[in-house]
């Protein structure tokens, strides 16, 4: 059952990205271009998403297991460390260059456009680099 809900959640997530315009890098960049011809649409994506999720997530914060009996795995870390801030700033630079973030990269991968394939390979390389550096640090 949790496999089915995971699959459906991913599918709905992807349909939402496509409907919202988040899967169109040109539209994402138009949102990030505050001083150009600014397209505020993506602010409404955030409003819609948070509006729909805030109730269920508030409920989830008070539970120790999910409705299907799985452990509730919410992040517990609280401190605002340099990794969080530096990593997020670096992510934003990459996002601002191409207008693609990880969700949309997956959601438009099967369109087969060469641009998303190049982006995805570079993103996976970046993630593997992180894993390699972390493994080295912990040894």
């Amino acid at each position, binding site marked *: 059952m949790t496999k089915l809900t995971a699959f459906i959640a*991913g599918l*709905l997530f992807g349909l939402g990205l496509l409907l919202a*315009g*988040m899967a169109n890098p040109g539209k994402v960049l138009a949102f990030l*271009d505050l001083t150009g011809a600014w397209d505020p649409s993506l602010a409404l994506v955030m409003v819609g998403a948070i509006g729909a999720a805030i109730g269920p997530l508030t409920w989830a914060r008070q539970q120790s297991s999910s409705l299907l009996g799985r452990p509730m795995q919410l992040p517990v870390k609280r401190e605002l460390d340099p990794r*969080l801030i530096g990593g997020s700033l670096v992510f934003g630079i990459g996002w601002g260059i191409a207008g*693609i973030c990880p969700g949309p990269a997956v959601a438009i991968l099967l369109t087969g456009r060469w641009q998303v394939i190049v982006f995805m390979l570079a993103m996976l390389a*970046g*993630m593997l680099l992180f*894993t390699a550096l972390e493994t080295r640090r912990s040894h």
Partner: protein
Amino acid sequence: MNVDWLNFTPWSSLAGGALIGLAASLFVVANGRIAGISGLIGSLLQRGSEGVSEKALFLLGLLIAPLLWGLFATLPQIEFKSGWFGLIVAGLLVGIGTRYGSGCTSGHGVCGISRLSPRSMVATACFMFSGFVTVFVLRHLLGS
């Protein structure tokens, strides 16, 4: 500020956003997991992660969403603005940054803010800020 009203899509963006929020809610409420895409991909790239099948199935659903969409309607416009060099640099920065920052637009921006997590609010402010600055620099200072 000069709003591009012609390309402004308030209703589809709001509805799409709500669908994203609903999907993230389902994953938390049913599976007890955060729908953070960079975290899901990143953990599948690491050896010994738990919950591999659920994570992989979520990503599979995300992956085939355009195929399902395509059965009923034409896919929305997908317009790329970068060349291969920009895409490689952007992909590397997104990959490294989201892993060091423990999340991306979905994990911090949607799930984290909905959990009222201070870390996610700070992270979202950071990547929005550097996204705005990057576009400003590339488009208006360097004029590419």
